[in-house]
């Protein structure tokens, strides 16, 4: 795999299922470099999950090309690409089957054919990262939903992929759980890994993820800094999405001098406080 190549390089990707009547992806171009943190948003059925499944070779293009670190996915089996691209599914119960937490996290690295000591090291690191170290010897199914989510993430992190794709990590989690997962992903990203998050949670994207790609009707509708994409209400409307509430509020105050590209509560507060001047 070439080091100078992009992490993910997708050119004119067209995809349709074998039994399908229409193209699910109709010519997608996307380039993600190493170390990026990207959100993939769009309605269900727009194609974002179908697109993401091309990243680790689960799906192969009908036409066009998908390159992972320079390598064409058509030529590589999924089990092989799993070394480079980790994919965490939305529902942790689709992955968890081993008895104990430790064994569950070890499943991936063992499949990679690593030595037992290497597997053990990676499992320890991954469990520490997600904060499940004290539960290492518990039964996986005795954990609550939020912790099982973390275990699913840890199981994939233990394979130490350079690219991580996470599908809807915050569904079904409360605020604390959602924040925890995002903190985890941010930490992983800071260490130089590439992360792609598929999500519906606009607020979390606005607060935590620097780049946003909008998928609509099998095409990329927008791709750029979150600050530009998530504050463009008319663009988002085409994908049947809305900016976060704080952005909508800020844009209604535009005539009073508030900037239209506000993404967080803190930013709006500062804008308003500044305009109110010294008392």
């Amino acid at each position, binding site marked *: 795999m070439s080091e100078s190549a992009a992490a993910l390089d997708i050119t004119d990707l067209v995809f349709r299922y074998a039994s399908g009547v229409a193209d699910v992806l109709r010519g997608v171009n996307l380039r993600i470099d190493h170390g990026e943190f990207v959100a993939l948003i769009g309605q269900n059925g727009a194609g974002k999950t179908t697109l993401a499944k091309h990243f680790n070779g689960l799906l192969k293009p009908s036409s066009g090309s998908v390159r992972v670190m320079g390598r064409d996915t058509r030529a590589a089996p999924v089990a092989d690409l799993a070394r480079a691209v980790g994919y965490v599914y939305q529902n942790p119960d689709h992955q968890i089957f081993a008895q104990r937490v430790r064994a569950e996290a070890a499943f991936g690295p063992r499949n990679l054919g690593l030595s037992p000591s290497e597997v053990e090291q990676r499992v320890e690191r991954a469990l520490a990262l997600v904060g499940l170290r004290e539960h290492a010897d518990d039964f996986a199914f005795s954990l609550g939903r939020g912790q099982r989510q973390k275990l699913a993430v840890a199981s994939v992190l233990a394979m130490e992929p350079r690219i991580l794709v996470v599908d809807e990590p915050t569904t079904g989690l409360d605020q604390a759980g959602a924040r925890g997962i995002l903190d985890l992903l941010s930490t992983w990203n800071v260490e130089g890994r590439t992360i792609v998050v598929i999500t519906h949670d606009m607020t979390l994207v606005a607060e935590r993820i620097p780049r946003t790609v909008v998928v609509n009707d099998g095409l990329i509708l927008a791709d750029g800094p979150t600050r530009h994409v998530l504050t463009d209400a008319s663009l988002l409307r085409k994908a049947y999405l809305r900016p976060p509430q704080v952005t909508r509020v800020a844009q209604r105050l535009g005539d009073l001098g508030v900037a239209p590209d506000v993404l967080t509560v803190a930013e709006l507060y500062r804008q308003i*406080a500044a305009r109110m001047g010294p008392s």
Partner: protein
Amino acid sequence: MEPADDVAIRVRDLRFRYPGATRDALAGLSLDVCRGEFLGITGPSGAGKSTLCLCLKGLVPAGEFSGSVSVAGQTLAPGSAYVESSALVFQNPETQIIGLTVAEDLAFGPENLRRDPAWIRAAIPVYLDQVRLAGYQDVDTYRLSGGQKQRLAIADALILEPEILILDEPTSELDPIGKDQFFEVLERLRRERSITVIMVEHAAEQLAAMADRVIVMQHGLVVDQGPPDQLYRNPVLFHHPEAERAPQISEVLFELLQAGLLPASQFTAQEEAGIQRLRALLENSVQSVAQRV
């Protein structure tokens, strides 16, 4: 609180523990719900919200139960008779849909209660219309999207003609369109009928817009309650990094409140009202600057 016969649900000291659990799921909870009220419930995972919903439907799980629950005058306890006055909508679109076609699914509940088939057949299109699924009678249920399934689940509950509708995180598995359409249907329902609604939701902005009163649960107890415009001011439960989700507008107004820039009476959790308050704030400060100059 209104006089006694306007109370739809009365819970006193409800205590429940699952078998083998180390602590109570519900720890002596007390709550009154008025007839026709829209009550929102929020709180972290494990607070006991789902357990409470099950209890209010009379589906008390196996475990240690104590305290009293009365729903539309009927006292509930483990093993008591089926509760007809409340109906429940669950979180997962898949496991609630039982019939192979939409009509079959809608008919499931009334058929269980041995209602007259002619009545059921006439009721089906009426309820489908209410949840914006008109004409879907013969559609196979596997073809429905998650959002459509959840709307069908509302119809499934309403066709049982309950006085109280309980919804447990009904939109958490839905995409934004699904959520919007679901809340739209709920809004319309609320306007057109005087049904009592209890909804557990993390979608704070929608909850604040629809609920008359919101309660926050933690560790099996109600730790605060009030109309959204009051409740979302609570600085312990909201407005800090480890807190529950509050509508973003209320977070902004809270910051302004803390900084002394907003009078307490102007605090709100509603988007429209909040925008108007902020406009007033900014316009006044422009004026006062102009006056000084």
